[in-house]
């Protein structure tokens, strides 16, 4: 075969160059990870938003929601394509800013970075940056120092850009004043009401109209697809209630675990501390020995000496008192010394990592064995829990098998585990969350889906055992099913008639009202109607009417007074408003003026930033891979 190579040297050479070229230009890694490229949910310019980055952002978003919503947080309801898209969009926006920051060659210098880290309060000890704290904080985050610093540098760079664009908004004072004028404007208006009821007598609804409405709005007159179900719940709690514990067991447990019912010995001690911070340890030690002598000469003055000389800021003020502590709470050397002393006794010099201590034990609380009777309830609860947990593990499997193997009844399972068969009320398919709250444990989405499956509806089988909560299994079966059906015309006739009547009457009221309004606006009709009392409408005050009305009154052109505006209200009445006076309040509260200006500036700044982002997005190639996004669900 090498003959072939030699004879076709040219061809082989060209071939080799062709093979080498891609490696030279794009490197090896584009071959190695080529396959995963399709799974990235988006790309911004040349950089990709990887699935992993998206997942992390998604998790963080969910955590935030969980914190804000607490018990109302329902992950499956939040997991909508829209929500995922929103998270992705936020990521894209951030990436756009990063790309732009890089493109603008914004950087944060090492000095600035160091300075920033040095000023993080959580990393300081006594107001000074502490390297130990920094390292332990990094460990807690599971990050290496270069990782953290790269991340921080990126954040700071972003902040530089975001701050420069977002915090530099300017609004014109002229426009601001204009806005304040509109916001504080007051309009005095009275109402003339044409009630729909007044026109009801003129309306007659014939059978054909009712039938037409019925046909056109069939959707409204349907009873839902609904089921009634019975169910059993196997839970740890149920087994707990059944569990029995004999006296012998309790006793045996107590004997076997005596140490658990022992309260440990505790001691109270005071100390005087000299910190080991002098360069010459011998010096500190000498000082400690001198102090010890002083204490030994007048043991009664221990507290006073501690107050004056101890370098432990926490305890010195309390005469060196550290309160009660058990084993494991103090530094090892200190603990050993403190637990060797008798009550009232003063130690010699004790060296620890901190420095030199002189310790005095002021009280001893000996360890104590608690009696069986004292701890019996605890033991009973503990043993019951153990027994139930153990039984639940076995029972869960048996329960799951039983409801599956005997699919025509829940009785075997109920009898075997001593459970009660409960029966539900009617449950419509796809119920609103609010309504579903009334379904009890059956509201679980998986249970609902199972109940409305063919297996449960047509074959009347038990649903599989569903874990509706930790350590809680449920199986249900349909007792009764009512398919969706149209309600007969007869049963809804009266309703439709009433509805149409109101509608027609409202239309008549509107017609009359509009005619009246036109006359008023022309100034033809002598304005003698029965106007209601004038009320003040202002955007800065509580509205004297529903928002729709207030809005209309405040928006009406008022070049000429009185001005009129009319609208149909929710209940079908037609209302005309006569605006008789437009004025500015005599004095606008200074605080109010500033608040309006501030809000205006904030809204404009926000919009500036939005426009900035939109513009970046428009001139950067942003690709969203919907398939990858949808595939990343769950």
């Amino acid at each position, binding site marked *: 075969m090498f003959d072939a190579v030699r004879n076709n040297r040219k061809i082989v050479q060209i071939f080799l160059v062709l093979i080498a070229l891609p490696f030279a230009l794009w490197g090896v890694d584009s071959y190695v990870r080529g396959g995963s490229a399709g799974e990235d949910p988006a790309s911004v310019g040349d950089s990709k938003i990887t699935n992993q980055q998206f997942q992390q952002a998604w998790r963080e978003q969910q955590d935030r929601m969980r914190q804000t919503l607490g018990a109302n947080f329902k992950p499956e309801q939040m997991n909508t394509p829209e929500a995922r898209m929103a998270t992705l*969009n936020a990521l894209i926006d951030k990436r756009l800013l990063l790309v732009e920051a890089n493109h603008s060659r914004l950087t944060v210098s090492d000095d600035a970075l160091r300075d920033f880290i040095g000023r993080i309060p959580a990393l300081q000890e006594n107001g000074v940056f502490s390297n130990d704290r920094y390292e332990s904080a990094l460990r807690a985050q599971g990050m290496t120092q270069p990782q953290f610093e790269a991340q921080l540098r990126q954040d700071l760079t972003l902040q530089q850009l975001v*701050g420069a664009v977002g915090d530099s908004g300017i609004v014109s004072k002229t426009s601001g004043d204009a806005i304040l004028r509109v916001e504080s404007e007051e309009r005095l208006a009275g109402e003339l009401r044409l009630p729909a009821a007044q026109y009801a007598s003129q309306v007659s609804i014939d059978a054909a109209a009712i039938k037409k409405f019925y046909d056109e709005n069939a959707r409204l007159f349907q009873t839902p697809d609904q089921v009634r179900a019975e169910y059993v719940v196997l839970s740890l709690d149920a087994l707990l209630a059944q569990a029995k514990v004999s006296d012998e067991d309790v006793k045996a447990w107590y004997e076997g675990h005596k140490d658990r019912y022992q309260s440990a010995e505790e001691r109270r001690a005071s100390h005087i501390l000299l910190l080991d911070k002098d360069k010459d340890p011998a010096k500190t030690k000498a000082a400690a020995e001198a102090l010890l002598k002083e204490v030994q000469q007048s043991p009664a003055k221990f507290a006073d000496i501690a107050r004056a000389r101890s370098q432990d800021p926490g305890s010195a003020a309390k005469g060196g008192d550290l309160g009660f502590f058990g084993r494991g709470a103090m530094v090892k050397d200190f603990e050993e010394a403190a637990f060797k002393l008798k009550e009232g006794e003063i130690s010699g010099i004790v060296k620890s990592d901190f420095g030199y201590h002189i310790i005095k034990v002021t009280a001893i609380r000996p360890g104590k064995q608690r009696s069986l009777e004292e701890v019996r309830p605890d033991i009973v609860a503990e043993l019951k829990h153990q027994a139930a947990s153990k039984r639940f593990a076995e029972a869960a499997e048996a329960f799951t098998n039983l409801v599956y193997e005997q699919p025509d009844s829940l009785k075997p399972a109920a009898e075997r585990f001593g459970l009660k068969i409960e029966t539900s009320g009617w449950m419509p398919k796809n119920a609103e969350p609010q309504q579903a709250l009334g379904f009890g444990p059956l509201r679980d989405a998986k249970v609902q889906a199972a109940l409305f499956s063919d297996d449960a509806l047509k074959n009347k089988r038990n649903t599989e055992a569903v874990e509706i909560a930790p350590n809680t299994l449920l199986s249900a079966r349909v007792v009764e099913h009512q398919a969706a059906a149209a309600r007969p015309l007869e049963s809804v006739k009266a309703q439709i008639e009433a509805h149409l009547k109101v509608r027609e009457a409202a239309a008549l009221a509107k017609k009359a009202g509009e005619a009246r309004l036109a006359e008023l606006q022309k100034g033809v009709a002598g304005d003698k109607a029965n106007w209601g009392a004038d009320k003040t409408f202002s*955007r800065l005050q509580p509205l004297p009417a529903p928002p729709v009305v207030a809005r209309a009154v405040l928006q009406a052109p008022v070049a000429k007074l009185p001005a009129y505006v009319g609208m149909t209200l929710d209940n079908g009445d037609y209302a005309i408003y006569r605006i008789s006076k437009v004025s500015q309040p005599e004095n606008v509260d200074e605080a109010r003026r500033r608040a309006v200006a501030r809000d205006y500036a904030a809204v404009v700044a926000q919009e500036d930033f939005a426009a900035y982002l939109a513009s970046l997005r428009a001139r950067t190639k942003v690709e969203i891979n919907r398939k990858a996004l949808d595939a990343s669900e769950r």
Partner: protein
Amino acid sequence: MATYDLEEQEQLDEIKTWWKQHGNTVVGVVLAASLAVAGWQGWNWYQRNQSAQASAILSVLQRAVEAGDTQRVKAAAGELAEKFSSTPAAGLGALIAAKAAVDTGDLKTAHAQLAWVATNGHDEVRELARLRLATLLIDEKAFDEALRTLDGPVLEGFATRFAEVRGDVLMAQGKKAEAATAWRSALTSLDATDSGAKGRSTLQEQEANAPYRELLRLKLESTGEAVPAPVAAAPAKEAAR
């Protein structure tokens, strides 16, 4: 010396003649290419270095603004504009300095900063400067100049804001009807960005835009002209119950 057979001897000769003919060209091309690469690298290095310095001054400027140190703000902004005028950081710095100047009532400096960016800045930063310069010009009652600043092509994404500020100018001139037209077009352009363009979720965008939409409507209302009905009208309740 190694001996070559005839065929190889021939090949060697061929190569030698070829080199005699083209050697200078090859060396020249290689040299030129090397120089170009070196020059490119050097240019990049220079740019990076300039940008790093400009970026550092920008940080200083930002911190001076936070601290309210007017003198240092001015100095840093001046340094950026003089020595690093070609870097993007210079434009950003001027935006910040202008805002700081407005806050301290020094409208002349603000005007100068923004005018500089509006002429020398790039892309989005330039658009922001134009908007803000026009805003300042309204307060200076230089309405024609304000309108001229807003004239000309606008980057996509800024159309709404430009229409809004144009309305501000016209309103300040007392041209209510024209201002209303401008603000109405701002509302239309805001709706256009809302309607799910670029894969954004409509609902979310609308929520985020709500305060700005309210502001535009309020401005429109102040003209006494008709205001378009809100987009999301309450669905008519036809329920038969």
